[in-house]
């Protein structure tokens, strides 16, 4: 008798928990949607497949009369690599920030002109100023593909061992530089 009452009591308890299950599921879903909809999140931004992997090998010609850029130039110290193009409007928007970044930080900033004509890329840097330590010309876009670039501008942080540690897709702004780029740069000793 006593056992039976206990069993019934437990069953009722279980049933009440079962009724709470939809509510619990609802809360989980709301949390998921809230995370996916949080302001500032761009769902089309992709994580890089190369994070913590060695930067791809490349050897690019430079602008007229200037040295080119190869993978070897990145070795032995942290580096920032920025893919840009004269035809790319957001690149223009981030350009003043790159100029300031090059002034303030000791880490070399390298530019890769993605699918750009040499004279256009050179004109872009003459008009707006040249923040880059060195510039390589990726006219075919193959080095871009090796890096996993899918839209310029993109900015990569590479540590002294030559591993890609961070990628930013799209134009850098003050917020992304201060909150993401610079802290990560510090992490890798820049």
């Amino acid at each position, binding site marked *: 008798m006593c056992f039976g009452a206990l069993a019934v009591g437990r069953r009722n308890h279980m049933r009440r928990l079962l009724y709470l299950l939809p509510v619990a599921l609802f809360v989980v879903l709301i949390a998921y949607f809230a995370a996916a909809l949080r302001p500032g999140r761009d769902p*089309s931004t*992709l*994580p*890089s*497949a*190369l994070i913590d992997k060695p930067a791809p090998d490349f050897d690019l010609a430079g602008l007229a009369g200037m040295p080119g850029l190869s993978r070897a130039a990145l070795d032995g110290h942290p580096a920032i690599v920025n893919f840009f193009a004269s035809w790319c409007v957001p690149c223009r928007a981030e350009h003043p920030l790159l100029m300031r970044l090059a002034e303030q930080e000791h880490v070399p900033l390298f530019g890769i002109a993605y*699918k750009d004509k040499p004279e256009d890329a050179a004109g872009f840097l003459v008009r707006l100023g040249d923040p880059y330590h060195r510039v390589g010309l990726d006219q*075919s*876009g*193959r080095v871009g*593909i*090796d*890096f*996993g670039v*899918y*839209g310029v501008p993109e900015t990569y942080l590479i540590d002294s061992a030559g591993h890609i540690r961070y990628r930013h897709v799209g134009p850098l702004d003050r917020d992304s530089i201060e909150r993401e780029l610079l802290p990560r740069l510090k992490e890798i000793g820049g």
Partner: protein
Amino acid sequence: MRHRATLTALLLLASVAAASAVEPRERLADPALESRARALSKELRCLVCQNESIDDSNADLAHDLRVLLRERIAGGDSDAQALQYLVSRYGEFVLLQPPVAPATYALWFGPPAVLALGAVGALLYLRRRRATAVEPEPLTEAERRRLARLLKDEA
């Protein structure tokens, strides 16, 4: 004459359906290799317009990737090697159909699992209802008489 017009219209429609972004100069000379490349490029996502395959997309990057894919195929890559070449650069997101791996089990098996769960729930519910269902008690003599009276009043 009318038949001919219909036929022409159908042929035109068919050619529209088969259209893709592949440009003639991108194509490989070897039809066997080209058809392999076409099949693969339908499975690869264009990273710029993310719900199109590189076979459908007119984006510059899609063009570059189609050319690159054909180079890999012509260079002797197997289908898996050619796909892996792009996956190692762009991640598994570049595959329009995600691979079945521990990380994607929830994706592949989640919906069938939910369906099975619902089926089990429905089955348990129906079974319990059948077990507890009781035949309605027959009417008493007094009730039957009252019912007859009411029905007669209605009429």
